[in-house]
């Protein structure tokens, strides 16, 4: 039998395969499919719009209000809404609306950078523990357990105090580092189990058999297939860290000086809530909505990337 005869015997002519979508012809990746699903998901859009608005608010607060959050007149103390101060005035006579808008920046900054720090530490620990296994895993996992076991507030108080020696600073760095260093454990655990699951996949064995070294295995095969859950945990962590800053500031160990953040606003408005609820309520609402938006975003992305849900 000639070569071409043999080949034609086994070739599949272009017969209809398992058609799933009308646009079968276009090449589709997992990310492409995920995007298609996200596009259709109203929750994704709501969350995404909210996140974008908050980010713009943090970067360009002047777009939202012409008022100066720091120009406060005691004569305005606890006045209701008037003119552009749609949320009224707080106990120092500051424009609550302006303070809320300007407060976004510190809150978001702390949230984003703390998450970045947690992400890097978590990735390193998770990837290392998951890929190498054995005693490396044992050691790293024990470290994770130890950090996990430390009571958050206790550690936060200790760390924040130690890191904020400089009376001039506003404490953003200290809070960021505190949150970053204490919040990576869940991300590390998730990464570790994803890596362990990916490691046992047949395609990793296939690559090993082809002669791939550890670097290629990690970068090309394991990481791309284990990072989805990790990233989702990070988006949720982002929301948690923003709330965390608020907590620390509320407790008085967060931002200092005349820094503005939602946490500080809530902290200051607390004692006066009977007189004027606005200064407490509005920053809280912004905080809650932002955290919720990040969490919803994380959920939507996770679901879109989950091949099992297809």
């Amino acid at each position: 039998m000639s070569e071409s005869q043999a080949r034609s015997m086994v070739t599949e002519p272009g017969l209809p395969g398992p058609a799933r979508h009308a646009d079968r012809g276009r090449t589709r990746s997992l990310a492409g499919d995920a995007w298609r699903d996200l596009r259709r998901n109203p929750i994704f859009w709501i969350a995404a719009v909210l996140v974008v608005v908050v980010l713009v608010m943090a970067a360009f607060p002047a777009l939202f209000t012409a008022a100066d959050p720091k120009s406060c007149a005691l004569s305005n103390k606890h006045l209701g809404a008037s003119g552009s101060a749609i949320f009224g005035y707080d106990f120092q006579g500051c424009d609550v609306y302006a303070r809320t808008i300007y407060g976004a920046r510190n809150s978001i900054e702390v949230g984003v950078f703390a998450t970045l720090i947690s992400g890097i530490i978590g990735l390193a620990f998770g990837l290392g523990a998951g890929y190498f296994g054995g005693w490396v895993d044992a050691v790293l996992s024990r470290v994770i357990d130890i950090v996990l076991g430390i009571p958050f507030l206790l550690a936060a108080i200790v760390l924040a105090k130690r890191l904020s020696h400089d009376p001039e600073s506003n404490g953003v760095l200290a809070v960021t580092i505190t949150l970053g260093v204490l919040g990576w454990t869940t991300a590390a655990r998730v990464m570790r189990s994803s890596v362990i699951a990916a490691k046992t996949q047949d395609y990793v064995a296939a690559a090993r058999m082809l002669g791939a070294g550890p670097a290629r295995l990690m970068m090309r095969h394991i990481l791309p297939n284990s990072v989805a859950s990790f990233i989702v945990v990070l988006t949720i962590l982002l929301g948690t860290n923003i709330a965390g800053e608020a907590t620390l500031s509320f407790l008085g160990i967060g931002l200092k000086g005349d820094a503005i953040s939602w946490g500080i606003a809530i902290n200051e408005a607390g004692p006066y809530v009977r007189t004027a609820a606005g200064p407490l309520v509005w920053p809280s609402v912004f905080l809650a909505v932002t955290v919720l938006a990040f969490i919803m975003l994380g959920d939507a992305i996770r679901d879109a990337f989950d091949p099992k849900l297809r």
Partner: protein
Amino acid sequence: MTDIHAELDAIPGTDPYAPLLQVNDLHVEFRTRDGVARAVNGVNLYLRPAETLAILGESGCGKSVTAQAIMGILDTPPAHVTRGEVRYRGVDLLRLPERERRKVRANRIAMIFQDALSALNPVYSVGFQIGELFRVHRGMSRADAKRRSIELLDQVRIPAAKDRIGDYPHQFSGGMRQRVMIAMALALDPEVLIADEPTTALDVTVQAQIMGLLRELQHQRNMGLILITHDMGVVADVADRISVMYAGKVVEEAPVYDIYGRPAHPYTKALLESIPRLDFKGQQLNVIRGLPPALTDVPRGCAFNPRCGYAKEPCRRDPAPPAYNIAPGRTVRCHFWNEVAGV
């Protein structure tokens, strides 16, 4: 002890002369975001007492969905039975209220699955699970239920049944677990047993044991057996009649000797020619070109036509070929069956 049998015999519509099980024009759809999948597209089946009917087909042909529809265990949604009847002794199960249906399901029609490990509850002992059937459906005391359970395990040839009654599913090997599942299915003395790929996941020697056991139990109890599988060897060994399914329809139905000796449908014929056989060597494996269709996008006319060597113009046009009755007990959905059968 409630007299469940008298109760079930008295369900309105029961017809002592009707076949044990009769499926008429069954249609099951799955509504997914990719469209509507016609998993079962006009299936007719029947089963007589003590008979073995094999439903043969590859993955996606609708055989498991048919079985689940008969049992009434389809997930609705996304599955919807849109048309048809499933008559047990003349009574249409699809139109029975759920309470009655559940009684029929437990006591008259039973099912075993491919994967015993997921069909058995891992946190209860085997004795508890089997005993529960007796306690709940027959009102037996705990002691009686335990005794009957041990008897059952003996019947399915589990060695040292008395000692193993307290063991958990994971403590049994694959073949043993399958036997436990069979024991559970037979506990309430059903008249029909549906076996959905019961031996596909088992080693060949264990498969032989289990199929032998099923055959023996069937004869002892005069039970009807519906065997769902893709394995043409197993079918040749045990079946009396075969219904071959493709893309949601029964494309050929015949007694077993006729199917293997003189298949009348191109798909059946092509399948037989594509499997390697233990007793031959060096035959050319004939390939069926292409792939089975997606159930959301079944071809017009005969669903098999794009892959069929005998296809001609009428095959590509609607309506799909009807079930031609070519001999007693033989139907074929093919316009050109005489060509295929070489008649």
